């Protein structure tokens, strides 16, 4: 890694011992080599999907097997891993995947975005900006942005080769004629390096601008669909739009009800059966760090 190793005194905890009976990071070395070659090609052609021979993993397709295979091929003993699911470190998918890698690699894990060298994500980009040297792995259900326009992969490959992206603009334009705006809320298509149309995985459109010129390396793994792709650091990523209907992100009328943040992506949470609900940060690490800072500064004032 080019960056200095993160980690502040006191954390993270010492790494656990890996479980015997598995190769390091679960995959056999032959599989890792094939996936590594695909990742390298992906980095060389930003946004272009590279086919790979996706393996059976000890969890079902659709639970992040693509991301897990990419992570398993990249991860090393010195890495500090963070796993998030919809922004949260403590939901089922995130906890399972984190426990899996602890078991088969014995690596250190963290919930803090800034301490991680390797982050696997399902459907969010953390609020805290990623740093140079970090590797950010997305779990991707559907890598092909043209799939709902052209279900044949052979034809879609031709369209990518010819840069024939007009039908995607037509699809977005149909939204405008129907709803007066582009109604896609997640998996909003982007143009990478001015050449390849790419699905950013189902992150909210709120996160799309974070991909542009990001200092971290972004890798995408689709297990069921057997595709890997990548965005190198400092690469242009543009969300598709029209001159008279420019791209815009969601905003909320209220701040987070836990930490008061006005700049983060908010989840609506139902809290009772009387129609009560609250709006809280989807990024649990960001929200907790803000709450801790606030209680810390309140104590100092007191």
């Amino acid at each position, binding site marked *: 890694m080019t960056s200095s190793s993160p980690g502040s005194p006191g954390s993270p905890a010492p790494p656990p011992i890996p479980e015997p009976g598995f190769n*390091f990071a679960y995959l056999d*070395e032959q599989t890792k080599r094939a996936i*590594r070659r695909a990742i390298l090609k992906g980095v*060389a052609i930003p946004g272009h999907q590279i086919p790979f021979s996706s393996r059976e993993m000890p969890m079902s397709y659709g639970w992040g097997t693509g991301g897990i295979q990419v992570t398993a091929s990249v991860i*090393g003993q010195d890495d500090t891993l963070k796993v998030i699911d919809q922004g949260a470190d403590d939901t089922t998918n995130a906890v399972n995947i984190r426990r899996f890698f602890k078991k088969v690699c014995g690596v250190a894990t963290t919930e803090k975005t800034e301490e991680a060298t390797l982050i696997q994500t399902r459907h969010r980009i953390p609020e805290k900006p990623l740093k140079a040297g970090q590797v950010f792995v997305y779990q991707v259900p559907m890598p092909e942005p043209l799939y709902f326009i052209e279900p044949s992969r052979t034809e879609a490959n031709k369209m990518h080769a010819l840069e024939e992206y007009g039908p995607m603009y037509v699809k977005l334009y149909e939204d405008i004629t129907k709803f007066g705006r582009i109604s896609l809320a997640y998996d909003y298509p982007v143009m990478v390096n001015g050449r390849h149309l790419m699905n950013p995985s189902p992150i909210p459109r709120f996160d799309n601008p974070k991909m542009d010129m990001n200092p971290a390396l972004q890798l995408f793994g689709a297990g069921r669909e057997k595709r890997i792709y990548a965005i*190198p650091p*400092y690469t242009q990523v543009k969300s598709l739009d029209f001159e008279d209907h420019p791209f815009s992100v969601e905003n909320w009328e209220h701040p987070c009800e836990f930490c008061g943040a006005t700049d983060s992506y908010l989840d609506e949470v139902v809290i009772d059966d009387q129609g009560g609900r609250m709006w809280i940060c989807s990024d649990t690490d960001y929200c907790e760090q803000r709450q801790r800072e606030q209680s810390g500064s309140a104590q100092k004032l007191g």
Partner: protein
Amino acid sequence: MITQLAGFADAIHDAQHTFRALLDALARPGIPQTTVSLTPPSGLESSCAATCLTLLDLETSVWLQPGLPADVRSWLVFHTGCRFTDHPHAADFALIWQLNNAPELSEFSWGTAEYPESSTSLLIQLPNLTGGEPITLEGPGILSEIEVSLPMESAFWQQWETMTANYPLGLDCWCFAQNQIMGLPRTSKLTASVYESLGFTKHGYSY
């Protein structure tokens, strides 16, 4: 086909470490990365040998630039099981130890329009990663631009310029010297001021 030399001291973690160096090299063109050291057969740089052990296996075909000691071939076969080809355009990886005598870039496979990833990756051994004419590169992985002074002749950069005009077709290179790696993906382009100063006109070349 017998080799006396060992490969990685730790096959799993040394390969992982080398892969990360290759990944960082390609993701940040122009910034040198360091690999683990091992005892390579004579004719291979330590970083190039580590790369071969990391990327090659029975699924890959390799073109060796003629003139490498026979030891290299037996070492690669023993440790990786890779296949060899005599045709540069049929190779997944091409190992070059004398860049000046190597085939032109157009003789390697640039991939196809639908599968640009089916191109040859060049593993280029150099005496050093510095000491050549400074060249400024731009493209993904590079924040604005970066200057490199790889010891390559201007003819190489001329061919490179022609190649990058065919993006997404093209070649990806790793340059090796001792235990250092520098990546040169097909997305790295010469900046306008550079190709003018080298006396090139943009995209004005054909083979």
